[in-house]
């Protein structure tokens, strides 16, 4: 049975075994102490066994990672068995498609795994949004109960963030080695581990919806999250494992970028996307711990009585009746110290894609390359100094509001540099409108909405009005679509012929664009409008008296059009274009390294050593070349980095 030998299937089996082991362990410990197996008396269902459920989830993830085979090589080393590195399918003789469902060390396979998982998770998050947008289409609709509604919006938020992180992983894992002329990442085994840990993470997030859900929003603020149903624990752990992926993946990106560039590729000759991925990895490496930590603290507050964020007097614990001594606002500081920089994790790679694609389709150099590169680094650094703007009305020190307002507004400066540089790149070009270019341009227009609606939120006084209204929802979705979704789709269309060797259907690609872009404008502006007319964030319904029914209906319809347009893309890329015409090695006449090798790419991307001899975006300069290929020699063994 081939299907039973797939890593994914074995991983799920291992996860199940781990779950049962973890659960039994806690129950056995309790019985050993003469305590009843159930932890909370008078409570039925999963919540009665909360500590056992939590430990089971941790064992589930470990069991999955062992079962899937991501730790096999390391475990073998531990007992002295050598596992020489080799490319290609792990089990000799198995067909190519099985590689995508098992542990594989090729960064190209891992990149596709990230991308396809990301799109699947995007579909789950999008479906949730469609459901609750139905309820919000008209006032006073109540077919989704308040608790279910709260779970759905919370799940939508965090599942979409998971999807974005997977998409970011897809782009950086697939593209960074290709763009710098390396045959793989620095640590291929770590790379595979970092991908696969997302799977139990995402599964836990989804299971959380069915074991009571959680009503806290994706932000999970205590004390609410300390009192929420047990689903919140699986939400915490799901985020924790996805965060672990971010940290491990970012180590790989940083080391790969710094040590594995082709000869001649100085930092300022790197493709601009590599700069963006590098800046992103720095944020991921240094900030992600904080969200993992803050969630872990609430997790332990719930089951171990550690009252980090408990001001005192919580009495729902059966044992450890009083914890107390904590401060709920402290959680928000820890949480936002990651979760604000995180939004730059979401958008910087996308902005890098825009900067990467504009020169190719405008046939011009990227305007102010160094400024664009440095603006990514500046956003990454300033992003660490602005977290408390999420807390202007939280009750934190009144004085703190002024300095955080200043630092927040500063973000506009490097962001502006990017916009102006894009305009400079388009100016005087010979612009060609292929689908990837359309999505890059759509991204600029949508990110502009997100960018311009930001400063009123960064200014304390206007934020006192707008904070936590639908205006924020509009602003945030515009930044996420402009900074991630549109560029991600642009990247999918752009590198599809490189990855598959086939050309997608251009007409359907344009249909996707022309459905999605106007619909997004309507949705985003509609959200901003209702937010300024009394529509709070995260409410399950609203009164007729607010008089926003028409705008809400338009937001819902636009949301469905966007959903439909994404289905058009999935149909195009994953069904119809499978047997399309061959694309050739370089359909976009790009100067990039990866476009100088055949499509689809061979297992070892660069059989000959690429040597960088010029600037990456010198379109329109006669006689300029970016890369030359040395004859393959023994001196250059095209190996992946050792680990």
């Amino acid at each position, binding site marked *: 049975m081939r299907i039973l030998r797939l890593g994914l299937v074995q991983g799920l089996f291992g996860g199940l075994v781990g779950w049962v082991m973890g659960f039994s362990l806690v129950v056995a410990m309790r019985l050993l102490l003469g305590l009843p197996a159930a932890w909370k008396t008078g409570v039925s269902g999963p919540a009665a066994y909360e500590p056992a459920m939590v430990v089971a989830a941790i064992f589930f993830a470990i069991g999955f990672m062992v079962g899937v085979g991501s730790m096999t090589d390391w475990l073998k080393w531990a007992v002295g068995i050598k596992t020489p590195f080799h490319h290609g399918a792990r089990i000799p003789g198995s067909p190519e498609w099985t590689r995508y469902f098992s542990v594989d060390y090729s960064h190209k396979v891992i990149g596709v795994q990230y991308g396809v998982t990301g799109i699947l998770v995007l579909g789950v998050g999008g479906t949730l949004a469609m459901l609750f947008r139905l309820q919000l289409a008209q006032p006073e609709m109540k077919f989704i109960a*308040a608790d279910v509604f*709260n779970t759905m919006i919370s799940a939508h938020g965090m599942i979409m963030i998971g999807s974005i992180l997977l998409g970011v992983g897809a782009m950086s894992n697939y593209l960074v080695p290709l763009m710098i002329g390396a045959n793989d990442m620095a640590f291929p085994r770590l790379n595979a581990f970092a991908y696969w840990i997302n799977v139990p993470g995402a599964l836990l997030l989804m299971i959380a919806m069915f074991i009571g859900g959680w009503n806290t*929003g994706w932000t999970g603020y205590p004390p*609410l999250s300390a009192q929420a149903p047990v689903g919140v624990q699986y939400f915490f752990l799901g985020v924790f494992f996805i965060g672990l992926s971010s940290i491990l993946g970012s180590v790989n990106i940083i080391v790969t970028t710094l040590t594995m560039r082709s000869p001649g590729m100085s930092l300022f000759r790197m493709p601009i996307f590599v700069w963006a991925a590098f800046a992103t990895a720095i944020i991921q490496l240094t900030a992600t711990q904080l969200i993992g930590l803050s969630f872990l603290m609430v997790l332990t507050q719930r089951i171990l009585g550690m009252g980090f964020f408990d*001001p*005192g*007097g*919580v009495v729902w614990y059966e044992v450890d009746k009083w914890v107390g001594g904590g401060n*709920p606002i402290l959680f928000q500081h820890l949480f936002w110290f990651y979760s604000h920089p995180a939004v730059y994790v979401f958008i910087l790679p996308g902005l890098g894609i825009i900067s990467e694609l504009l020169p190719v389709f405008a*046939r*011009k*150099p990227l*305007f*102010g*390359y160094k400024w664009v590169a440095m603006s990514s680094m500046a956003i990454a650094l300033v992003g660490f100094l602005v977290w408390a703007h999420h807390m202007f*009305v*939280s*009750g934190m020190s009144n004085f703190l*509001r*002024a300095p955080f*307002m*200043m630092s927040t*507004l*500063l973000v506009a*400066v490097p962001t502006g*540099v990017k916009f*102006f540089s894009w*305009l*400079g790149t*388009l*100016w*005087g*070009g*010979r*612009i*060609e409108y292929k689908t990837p270019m359309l999505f890059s*341009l759509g991204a*600029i*227009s949508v990110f*502009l909405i997100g960018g*311009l609606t930001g*400063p*009123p939120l960064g*200014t*304390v*006084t*206007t934020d*006192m*009005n707008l*904070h*936590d*209204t639908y205006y924020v929802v509009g602003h945030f979705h515009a930044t996420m679509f402009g900074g991630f979704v549109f560029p991600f789709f642009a990247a999918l269309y752009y590198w599809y012929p490189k990855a598959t060797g086939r050309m997608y259907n251009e007409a359907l690609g344009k249909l996707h664009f022309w459905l999605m872009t106007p619909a997004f404008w309507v949705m985003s502006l509609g959200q901003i409008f209702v937010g300024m*007319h009394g529509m709070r*964030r*995260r*409410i399950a319904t609203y009164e007729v008296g607010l008089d926003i029914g028409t705008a809400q209906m338009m937001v819902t319809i636009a949301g469905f059009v966007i959903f439909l347009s994404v289905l058009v893309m999935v149909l195009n890329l994953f069904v119809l274009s499978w047997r399309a015409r061959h694309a050739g090695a370089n359909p976009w006449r790009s100067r990039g390294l990866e476009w100088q090798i055949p499509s689809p790419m061979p297992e070892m991307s660069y059989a000959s050593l690429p040597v960088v001899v010029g600037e990456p*975006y*010198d379109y*329109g300069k*006669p006689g300029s070349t970016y890369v030359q290929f040395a004859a393959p020699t023994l001196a250059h063994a095209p190996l992946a980095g050792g680990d």
Partner: protein
Amino acid sequence: MEQGTPKRSYTRHFIIVSVLVIVVAAAAALGLQALPKFPRASTQAIVIDQMFDLHLAVIGFLFALVMVFMLYSLFVFRRQKGDERDGDHFEGHTKLEIAWTVLPLIIVLIFGVLGAQTLRQVTAAQPDEMVVEVTAFSFGWQFAYPELGVSEATALNLPVGRPVLFKMKSLAQDVIHDFYVPEFRVKQDLVPGVPTQLRVTPDKVGQYKVRCNELCGTGHTTMLADVNVVNQADFDAWVAEQRAAVSPERLAALGQELHTSQGCIACHNISGDPGLPGPTWKGIFGHEVELVDGSTVLIDEAYIRQSILEPNSQVVAGFQPIMPLTYGDVLSDRQIQALIEYIKTLE
């Protein structure tokens, strides 16, 4: 790659684009200002809306700048069919980059200063503030007017034009809530264990709603309370009605009991005889008294309340500031009101 693509002249394009940017920016600014506005009902809202309008003007301009430049380029610099040439080769312009780094920097700093100034305005203490204590719980609101002896009100009644200081708390075992009246344009979280405050001066008679603006669980959507901004006469009538609900006689009886049980009797007698560490309570209400600093004060409800909450702030001449500071924590508003009613009866 084409050899020697001739560089085009851009002067004409820049002139056209600049004109278009100005036209579109003006149209965008006007259009944004013309959008239907949500009603407003506080002096703080005026400041905040002005700040927002300033943002809108800049948003309109930047929107025009980016979109006009982009759409113009997309149209004018589009590739003609069959034209395989590249665009014009220019890699950047350092002075331009410095300009569009420094100018926005100056603008955001100006906005930062304006933001801080307006923040000072909307949070500044006002003369003659009325204190309203707000308690949030899952899933409702309660309002108390300690200076007026009104407690446990479920609707927020406010006299128009009177500055209000909201002292806010969420119950210790509860979750975070947020006090938001969209017409007032300001909001503030109520956090278990962390007291917070907010200032509002309602300036328009009308009916509004407090809307909980921090997700707090099942009842979040419907966690609303009525706000009635009324003229002073109507407000006074409402206060009288609220107070009548608790008869002064019963409060005075409670006060007599507290006089003994809370230990007031140790320092304050009701006979008028001198000799105790604190002033007598007999016959003082409604009379003026000299303080240690030489000034005089009328002994009214506010003075008695103040003397209980902050005993050392206005000590009567001839006495030492030795009263325990803890009565504000020990006594409820209702109990303080009861003591006041009791003192009133000691003619």
